[in-house]
């Protein structure tokens, strides 16, 4: 009896194994592309399905949680991935490490739809390796009523965050470069300052902010404004959009000193196994209607100029998503993080220990 049971179990294992094997082999024969980027519908499922339906090309989507993870994966297996979406600074690193394909524009006619304002930036001056996909910014999301209730002045700039009335009322992204950058801007300096005098001035100013911060949170800072534990937060635009959708009393404030911008870009591996399919995919998502749909689902600003007429009304009227020119003009990148990181991280650790 006992022997029988073991035999049956063994047969089941073999049968399941065979099934998996057959399935793997079947998908190998099919046309496919392998892409990797952030999860959470960053490239909407619905768009991918539409692409597969129209072209018959299967899309394997690997979800990762950081630019650095993508770098490691790409360095370890450059011949396994076709496409990835990485943030601006990572484009710069990957191209300098020689991992990126110089894109053949003749295979990408739809690249004409991309707004030149978002091209030719520091990470790819000649538009050789990257195509902008999703733009985000950081700014302040404020609950004006709650700010007034605390007896504080209305918030229009970073400087206003230092008001003593705002004790335990601010939520911030938890990242040294970003927070020290905010302090530098409030002092009228630029991001990633290396001048020791300016840095030590910023350090002192940063320490003075500690008592006002209720929470450091990178993934869901908007929750703190929605549930009322904070009255002002410094966060990414897609988070601010979500926060406002949950509580319409929350208002974006674009600090007059300026704010950061991040451009997530498509890049192709130099050793991509399915380059032609990958070009087809890139061209597909740069169609105006598709780009508009992606922008609406992901709540990121689209670099696709031609997509504008297809954007829904509420998206077009939202300054957090459809950046007005004067807002876009006041943004800057974090350039040269590697020069300041160790110093900033050290200051930030001291700040946290206070």
């Amino acid at each position, binding site marked *: 009896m006992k022997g029988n049971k073991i035999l049956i179990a063994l047969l089941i294992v073999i049968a399941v194994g065979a099934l998996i094997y057959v399935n793997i082999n079947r998908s190998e024969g099919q046309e496919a592309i392998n892409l990797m980027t952030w999860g959470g519908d960053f490239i909407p499922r619905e768009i991918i399905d539409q692409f597969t339906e129209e072209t018959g090309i299967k899309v394997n989507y690997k979800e990762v949680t950081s630019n650095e993870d993508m770098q490691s994966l790409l360095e370890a297996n450059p011949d396994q991935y076709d496409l990835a979406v990485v943030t601006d600074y990572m484009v710069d690193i990957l191209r300098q490490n020689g991992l990126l394909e110089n894109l053949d524009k003749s295979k990408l006619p739809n690249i004409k739809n991309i707004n030149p304002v978002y091209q030719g930036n520091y990470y790819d001056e000649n538009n050789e390796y990257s195509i902008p996909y999703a733009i985000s910014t950081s700014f302040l999301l404020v609950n004006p009523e709650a700010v007034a209730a605390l007896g504080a002045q209305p918030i229009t700039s970073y400087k206003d965050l230092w008001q003593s009335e705002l004790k335990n009322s601010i939520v911030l992204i938890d990242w040294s470069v970003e927070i020290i950058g905010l302090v530098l801007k409030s002092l009228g300096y630029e991001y990633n300052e290396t001048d020791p005098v300016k840095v030590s001035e910023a350090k002192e100013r940063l320490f003075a902010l500690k008592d006002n911060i*209720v929470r450091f949170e990178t993934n869901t800072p908007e929750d703190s404004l929605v549930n009322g534990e904070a009255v002002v937060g410094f966060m990414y635009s897609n988070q601010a959009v979500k926060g406002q959708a949950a509580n319409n009393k929350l208002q974006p404030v674009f600090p007059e000193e300026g704010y950061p911008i991040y451009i997530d870009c498509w890049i192709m591996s130099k050793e991509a196994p399915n380059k032609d399919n990958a070009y087809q995919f890139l061209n597909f998502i740069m169609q105006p209607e598709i780009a508009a749909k992606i922008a609406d689902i992901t709540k990121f600003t689209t670099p696709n100029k031609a997509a504008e007429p297809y954007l829904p009304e509420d998206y077009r009227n939202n300054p957090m998503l459809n950046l007005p020119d004067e807002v876009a003009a006041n943004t800057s990148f974090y350039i040269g993080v*590697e020069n300041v990181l160790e110093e900033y991280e050290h200051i930030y650790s001291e700040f946290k220990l206070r």
Partner: protein
Amino acid sequence: MKTLKRNVLAIPFLIWFGLLVGIPLVYVVVLSFMSRDHLGNVVFRFTLENYQKVFDPIYLRVFANSFLLALLTGFITLLIGYPVAYITSQLEPKKRNLAIALFMLPFWISSLLRTYGWVILLGNTGLINNVLLALKIIDKPIPMMYKFSTTLIGTVYMLIPFMIVAIYNSVDKLDRSLLEASYDLGASKVKTFFKIVLPLTIPGIAGGFTLVFTPALGLYFISDLLGGGQTIFLGNLINTLVNRGRNRPLAAAFSVGMILLVTLVISIYGRITKDKGEGLFQ
């Protein structure tokens, strides 16, 4: 010949151990002496600079902060876990098995989700505050989140099963006749506990402490979620250095420091259990 036969059985384990623990460990140690270029790529050039940075006064305070959290977690889990383990061991077998199954039950759920459970419980709009507000016991929410103590609650909650099981094993093995002898000689229950039970279960306590202390040093997501990032622990620092800082050599040097801290605790544990002839490593 006999010992050889016994050792043959250990070979698969040793290979497994060597591959999955030994090699990564050597990698971390080697990495900690390497440099990196301006793009964050690891460069194979020997340097002691990483260790110099680890011994910076600010970073030493991060070590102290983590050590304090792990130590407090150990003591609190012991304080709560000991009575629980003791009472459990006194139960009749059926109830005892049920109790042990219940201790293990939380492991079936993702630890991240369970941590979010505490947010739902302790938040300003959380369960506790809502109930107290509704009962008009308080008129504005008590801030319970984003403190050192909130992080401590999280680590204690996450790790207490290890303490309970370690002590339970120790208490369960206790020779009951010793207790009877103690009663027969006129010792009270309290005296028996402190003179007989406690000394005999010290290996279990030390084992539980080691099992709790070690992971408490590295659970960085708890301090992120419950502590609101208000202070900094070793786990946070290493995570930032690897992910955003692209400075793996320095992260490796911090990890070696953390490993040394753990080794210290384990060697103390080894010393405590050496003469007792029981413990996790025998």
